[in-house]
């Protein structure tokens, strides 16, 4: 298989993995993204609940402040949803293309051939950096291509970027 000079054996296994079973070898996201999202959810909805509780107790009476339980319920529900959503994210590096699968209710699966990549981007916002996360985004000539892998370990993100760039060059094709 024409994987080029890949330094990590792990990556080679993945690239060759397709040949073994026909089914691609999926990689799940590290738990960091889930931790970050859940923390943000709890912090924001917690603040809203406290603010609503206090405001209602002062103006409408203590019984009304029970409405502040609504954000708490939303937080609990969101906690479960975030978990489901996080579990649904996965990607696979095949010999010739990258597969990204995500979403439970709104499921989306994307296939991007390496030869079509115009640009690979690694971004990391301030909150993401705090949690040691990075996002890899692939751009092709079609703007509709939505190939983003969030919440990767920075080292993994860089490995993926380098590997994708290398494969993109090897299989490069015009428009």
């Amino acid at each position, binding site marked *: 298989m024409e994987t080029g000079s890949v330094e990590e054996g792990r990556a080679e296994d993945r690239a060759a993995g397709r040949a073994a079973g026909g089914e691609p070898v999926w990689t799940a996201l590290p738990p960091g993204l889930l931790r970050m999202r859940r923390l943000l959810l709890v912090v924001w909805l917690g603040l809203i609940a406290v603010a609503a509780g206090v405001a209602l107790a002062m103006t409408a009476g203590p019984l009304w402040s029970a409405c502040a339980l609504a954000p708490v319920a939303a937080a609990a529900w969101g906690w479960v949803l975030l978990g489901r959503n996080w579990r649904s994210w996965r990607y696979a590096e095949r010999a010739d293309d990258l597969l990204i699968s995500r979403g439970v209710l*709104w499921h989306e699966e994307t296939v*991007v051939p390496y030869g079509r990549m115009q640009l690979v981007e690694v971004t990391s916002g301030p909150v993401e950096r705090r949690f040691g996360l990075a996002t890899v985004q692939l751009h092709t*000539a079609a703007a*509709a291509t*939505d190939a983003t892998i969030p919440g990767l370990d920075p080292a993994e993100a860089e490995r993926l970027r380098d590997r994708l760039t290398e494969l993109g060059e090897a299989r490069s094709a015009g*428009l």
Partner: protein
Amino acid sequence: MTTPDDGTAAGEVLAGERAVQEPAGVTERRLHPVTPLRRAWAPVTVLAGWAVHDPDQTQRQLTRLTTTTLLLGLAALVLAAALYGFLSWWFTHYAVTGAELRIRTGLLFRRTAHIRLERIQAVDVTRPLLARVAGVAKLKLDVIGADKKDELAFLGEAEACALRAELLARAAGFAPDTAQEVGEAPARELVRVPARVIALSLLLIGATWGSLLTAVVVPPLLWIATHSLWTVLAAAVPLLGGAVTSSAGRFLGAYDWTVSESPDGLRIDRGLLDRTHETVPPGRVQTVRIVEPLLWRRFGWVRVELDVAGSSNSVLLPVAPRHIAEAVVARVLPGVTVPRAADLARPPRRARWCAPVWWRGDGIAVTDTVFAARHGLLRRRLALVPHAKVQSVRLTRGPWHRVWRVADVHVDTGANKTVTARLRDADEAARLLRDQAERSRTGRRRARPDRWMTAEDGSGAPGRR
């Protein structure tokens, strides 16, 4: 490019990057001396725009001025306009080198665009009515990534045609020293659309009647409602304008529509007052759409549209009988046969719960060379994407789709258009996703090179001229 301030677009290489390979002594040329006249209009237009925008104010200002001031102001304006026109002409140069077209422009904000010839998607020579009188033409280039067309306006007519031929010859991979002598490739006429058919086809489109009807009905209603002349005028002028462009304008633009074939690609010649001459080099077409409006079905007419990356004009044939259209499509996408309506696979029956009645209009077919998807019940649109042009493939499934076990498959192309196979069976869609990725990978290997005359055999060009 005409405006000096629109920055460096993605399709261009910055100056100096490839200067190494250039032979010394690239000859720079200027545009046609008529150009300043066209540029000189800019300040006058601005003033006219302001006057139209606020008529009362303008009248008051005009009465305040004496004749002398008015004349002086006018003289100053004309002088300034002439100077602006002259300077912008003086500072605009272009040159063709082995690999690039260079355009150097701008008085205050200098801009140098280097356009890679093999990246050119299409070349148009347009001659608006006034330019035809003056004997000049505009050369437009479609380049991937650039927002608007790079254009050279104006060139002498003969010069524009020669430059077009030279650009295409160089883009095709002819050696630099022979490119100039290759000349215009011979063209073979494929279709010429009769004016009667164009007129009839426009009359059979709902949009034409819709705009005409609005233009006739809305102003009287407004008059009854408001009794204000300005309101009625403000509504009637754009409506009438829209009605005229959508009927007479389209007819004039499509008049004498000729599609011909040449080694440089497809030629489209069209227009009664403004003549346009477009060339789409081979292998540039990303998507072909065959559109069949409801009222055309009786005549068996279709419209053929194409998507080329970085291009805005998309119509290949405004109206033609289906068999002719299919023959032309076979020329645009070599080796492609348009799948027959009977060959299109419909979504499963349960899809009617997702799109009642309309699900019948959907259908897909996959051949060795193209992915074809039809959509629309009344106005049918069949989109064809060559496998080699697929940028990415996506499968999407919403909650309601999940209930009925169906999914959509989107195929993205480089012209920023997406072709969607709607409401396929979930298993079929998953298979389609994998197979399409595989097909587009193998399809790409067989694709033609960007420099189309440097084909596999390497012997260069077949005889032209």
